[in-house]
């Protein structure tokens, strides 16, 4: 059975900009790997040999990311649409999976950048879903999946097919070098046309236009005069009854 790693399915919110009128703009920001994507790749590698790891992505990010980290080939839907309704992108991923045979385990980084897509994916796939995954291995009983729950790690056994939603606990330890990156670019890349995918879903929400948050902006003191800034801060904290 193949293990599919889904990567680079969202943009980095740090790339977003907002103007004084509250209009949000992403500029030329592309789909990016989140902090959880490398952890998801590690989980994929812990349960499958590299020749059995298939990568799946969407949008306009660098598609060699997973291949450079060991995936044998990559499928991508370059014209996939991001939407506030997570069902839109999740349905694209589900439809794209139809092109991959013998899928056993799906692995995705459960990024804080966007909670809707992974949740929607979990709801659309008719398979066990394990969240908060920090590790996995194969066993005679199927998959032994380790999840972080508070201060403890719990180990669960689950049968394939299954969706593992991975939480990264640290930054990427083994960033591929130029040799791996170049090798990754030579691996097969299969571009799927969104219009050719049967069953994708349209958005069911209508945005009314972005605006600045209603919550008050931070009161920021100018530290170029450190004494005054500190005194102003202390006065504010005293006034709030916090000191």
């Amino acid at each position: 059975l193949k293990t599919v790693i889904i990567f680079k399915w969202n943009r980095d919110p740090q790339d977003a900009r907002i103007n004084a009128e509250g209009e949000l703009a992403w500029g030329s920001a592309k789909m990016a790997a989140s902090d959880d994507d490398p952890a998801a790749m590690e989980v994929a590698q812990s349960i499958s040999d590299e020749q059995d790891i298939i990568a799946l992505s969407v949008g306009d990010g660098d598609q060699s990311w997973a291949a450079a980290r060991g995936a044998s080939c990559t499928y991508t839907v370059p014209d996939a649409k991001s939407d506030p309704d997570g069902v839109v992108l999740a349905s694209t991923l589900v439809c794209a999976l139809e092109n991959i045979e013998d899928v056993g385990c799906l692995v995705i980084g459960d990024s804080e950048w966007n909670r809707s897509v992974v949740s929607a994916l979990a709801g659309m796939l008719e398979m066990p879903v394990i969240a908060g995954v920090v590790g996995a291995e194969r066993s005679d009983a199927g998959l032994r999946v380790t999840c972080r729950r508070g201060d403890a790690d719990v180990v669960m056994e689950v049968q394939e097919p299954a969706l593992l939603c991975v939480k990264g606990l640290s930054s990427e330890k083994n960033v591929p070098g130029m040799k791996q990156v170049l090798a990754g670019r030579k691996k097969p890349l299969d571009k799927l046309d969104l219009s050719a995918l049967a069953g994708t879903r349209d958005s069911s929400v209508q945005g009314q236009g972005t605006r600045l948050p209603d919550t008050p902006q931070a009161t920021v003191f100018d530290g170029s005069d450190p004494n005054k800034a500190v005194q102003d801060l202390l006065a504010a904290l005293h006034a709030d009854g916090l000191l």
Partner: protein
Amino acid sequence: VSSDSIIVIADARRIGGLVETARALGNVTALVVGNEELAQQAAATGCERVVLFETTDEVPPEAFSNDVRVFIRDETPKCVLSNDDASARMLAASSLTDLDACVLSDVIGLREEGGKVIATCQLAEGIAVEDYVCEKPLIGIFAGDDSTPETAQPTEIERPQTAQSNIRVVETIEGEKGAVNLAEANRIVGVGRGLKKRDDLPLIEDLASALGAEIACTLPLCDDLHWYDASRVLGSSHRQAAPELYIAVGVQGAPNHMSGVRDAGTIVGINNDPDAGLFRRCKYGIVGDLYEIVPLLTEGLK
């Protein structure tokens, strides 16, 4: 009683906020996938119904996925809401196909107009918000503030029959307790990579001492620099805390870290980068050199 909204609860964070937000759509049913204590907390919030699928050390929330799905399907709510707990989110979404629902992240408010649910959501780590008119039932992930609901007569807890799946916990590995319990701290000083070297840590320790605060850190200070152990890392991947006062020093404000203090009462940021994400999340900030600011602040607190 009909369930206009169902809130799926797998941990105790922001139950009051969930109930208050869902209340805008009518009757609220709390679907608790956890233990009796968690159900009691939900029952004290004034929900019309509280339904418990009881987990044990061996039976995790994931084992109730189909039970949750069937319950939500049969209630046909306008909205299913959960906090950002990973298990709760996945359980809430289990009903997606049955409800033919839409899914929105970072929901901070709900209302109903013309028979349609309108969700207010944060975008891009909260730098903007937008209202979305939902053409279908909504599955929402709540990112709003917590609140303390009016004390009510505790709701009776229902315990329906379940048909748990065979997912089982086969081993539990307790983590090292570490040096500190940040969850209990009333004041916390957090330090990030703005601190240039380990020898400068006394700056932070003095501030924490003057404030009567615990010390926390961002992930790189534990993971890359090894200045602190993991018990001091604040973030969604490690510890979460709700102190009355959190002073973040030299912290950039990455989402992973800031979600660990989302429930803090007041956040103060000190950073020399005016564009640091930290300043989007704090109430007060000082843009300046921490090496100048922190000693003055420590003296001021003394």
